[in-house]
């Protein structure tokens, strides 16, 4: 009778789980609710500290996977996917008794419960002594999501606790392990660009540096090309780093950079803004006396708006505006069909318009057109030198965005600000 009852309990909760496409056990939905249960608070940290640490722990998984997590303190407990609690010895209806101070510090179940041994000395992040609750929470959440222990230096899924260094983050192996279960992060972007800035060295020399940014809706990521990932802690709300541009997103970013001009523009709808790099905000009025936002039709006569996207081509000093299947340049003979301006290298392998983002990358010294989850690289001079038969400005066969720029993942809106 007991076995039948337990089997019934297990089958009820097992419906939350599903065989993923990789035939691994994993959650079948992408937005998961969690709660620190009231009867399971730790006696060592304030409740707010505990909740903050768990919010951060869930967000860290969200930053490297298509999963989103939201704290739910109101729904019936059986509707909460992941329940967390602290206990000692015999605890929280669990049959795995904790062993006291030392050794086992927590355990987790695929059904969604995480238990922490409150006999251990859990501490907040960046506190030197004790056991980092954040690190343990990230580890146990990994189990809940379906990861086993991983015996690799640096992996968050190592079974033994290692004293936390100044900071810990998901390494490449941990990211790919979770993505094997839930897939990579995919999605269209509003715009992608390399932000150029000038810095002075201690010796007074001016050096040019750039950072790569991806924007989607009201968020953005800084992409660290040399590390093949986004900056830790991203995405960030637009208004945090880009003051004055529309908070819910932009259509395009253009940096006009020539010997005579150096101007940055953001486009949204029928308007555009000029960005003041020195003061890190949009111009209300630029030195030429123009007030912003301005209508695109005023600043760029003949260009239809709203636009899909745009980019500045330093090869010919023109801004290319994309709208539907047309490309507009403030020059004669435009607008033209996109297939005429950017012909396909392989027939039928072409975005055919409605481009999401046009991006010149200084890292790759190449122009990319992004649409949906795919991108096409524009044939460059080096490509044509190696293969002269390639058409000028041809589009090479498409590739997947997430296989080129890794782990650009959304988080739940409630997790944007912890």
């Amino acid at each position, binding site marked *: 009778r007991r076995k039948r009852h337990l089997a019934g309990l*297990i089958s009820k909760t097992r419906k939350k789980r599903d065989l993923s496409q990789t035939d691994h056990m994993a959650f079948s939905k992408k937005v998961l609710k969690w709660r620190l249960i009231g009867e399971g608070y730790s006696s060592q940290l304030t409740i707010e500290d505990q909740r903050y640490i768990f919010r951060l722990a869930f967000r860290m998984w969200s930053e490297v996977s298509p999963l989103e997590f939201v704290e739910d303190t109101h729904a019936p407990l059986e509707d909460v996917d992941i329940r967390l609690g602290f206990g*000692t010895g015999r605890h929280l209806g669990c049959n795995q*008794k904790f062993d006291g101070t030392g*050794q086992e*510090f927590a355990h987790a179940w695929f059904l969604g419960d995480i238990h922490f041994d409150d*006999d251990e000395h859990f501490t907040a992040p960046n506190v030197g002594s004790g056991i980092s609750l954040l690190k343990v929470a990230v580890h146990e959440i990994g189990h809940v999501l379906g990861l086993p222990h991983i*015996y690799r230096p640096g992996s968050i899924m190592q079974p033994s606790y290692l004293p936390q260094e100044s900071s810990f983050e998901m390494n490449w192996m941990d990211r790919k*392990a979770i993505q094997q279960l839930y897939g990579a992060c995919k999605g269209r972007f509003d715009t992608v660009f390399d932000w150029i800035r000038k810095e002075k060295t201690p010796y007074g020399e001016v050096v040019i540096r750039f950072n790569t940014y991806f924007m989607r809706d009201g968020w953005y990521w800084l992409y660290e090309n040399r590390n093949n990932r986004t900056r830790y802690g991203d995405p960030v709300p637009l208004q945090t780093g880009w003051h004055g541009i529309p908070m819910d997103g932009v259509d395009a970013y253009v940096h006009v950079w020539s010997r005579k001009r150096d101007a940055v523009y953001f486009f949204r709808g029928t308007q555009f803004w000029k960005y003041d790099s020195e003061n890190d905000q949009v111009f209300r009025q630029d030195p030429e006396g123009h007030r912003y936002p301005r209508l695109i039709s005023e600043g760029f006569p003949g260009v239809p708006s709203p636009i899909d996207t745009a980019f500045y081509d330093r090869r010919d000093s023109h801004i290319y505006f994309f709208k539907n299947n047309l490309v507009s340049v403030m020059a004669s003979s435009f607008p033209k069909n996109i297939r005429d301006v950017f012909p396909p290298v392989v027939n039928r392998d072409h975005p055919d318009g409605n481009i999401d983002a046009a991006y010149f990358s200084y890292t790759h010294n190449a122009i990319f057109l992004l649409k949906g989850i795919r991108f096409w690289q524009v044939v460059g001079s080096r490509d044509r030198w190696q293969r002269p038969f390639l058409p000028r400005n041809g589009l090479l066969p498409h590739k997947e965005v997430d296989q080129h720029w890794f782990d650009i993942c959304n988080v739940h809106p409630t997790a944007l600000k912890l």
Partner: protein
Amino acid sequence: EKPFHNRDHSDMQSLNSHQAQAVTDKYTAELFLSRYGFIEPVNWEEVQLEDSDASFSGDFLDDLQATIQEGISVAHLRDNQAFISALTEFQRVSGLPVTGVFDEATKVAMNKPRCGVPDKEMGLTNPVVATVPESSGDFDFENSTSTSNNTTTVR
């Protein structure tokens, strides 16, 4: 209140807490190896919830667990090879010298704070050592002028 004296509570002591049983000898090492699946993979998903209809008492579960573990241990004490095999597997995945002997380094490793989830579970190919390739970007980033640092960048 749990007593403490430091401002940041870093020296907080647990009241009435008892210390976990340390792994000190071959017997406790065998219990460790059994608990975490090195002797036989553990069916971790058999969750037993305390419920009025399923009245597994805590004492019953304690006795059951101890009996199972002792039973397994007794059986395996008769078969020393199984213990050595489990021990070497633990040493191997833990990055220890694979001696097959319950030595000091192994004892220290077994007594480290660790997660209670077994390392070897039924139905899984465990443990995962290295199955995912390292970062393999398609491009050479040597000319990047990004100021982004390596993994020491702080969130």
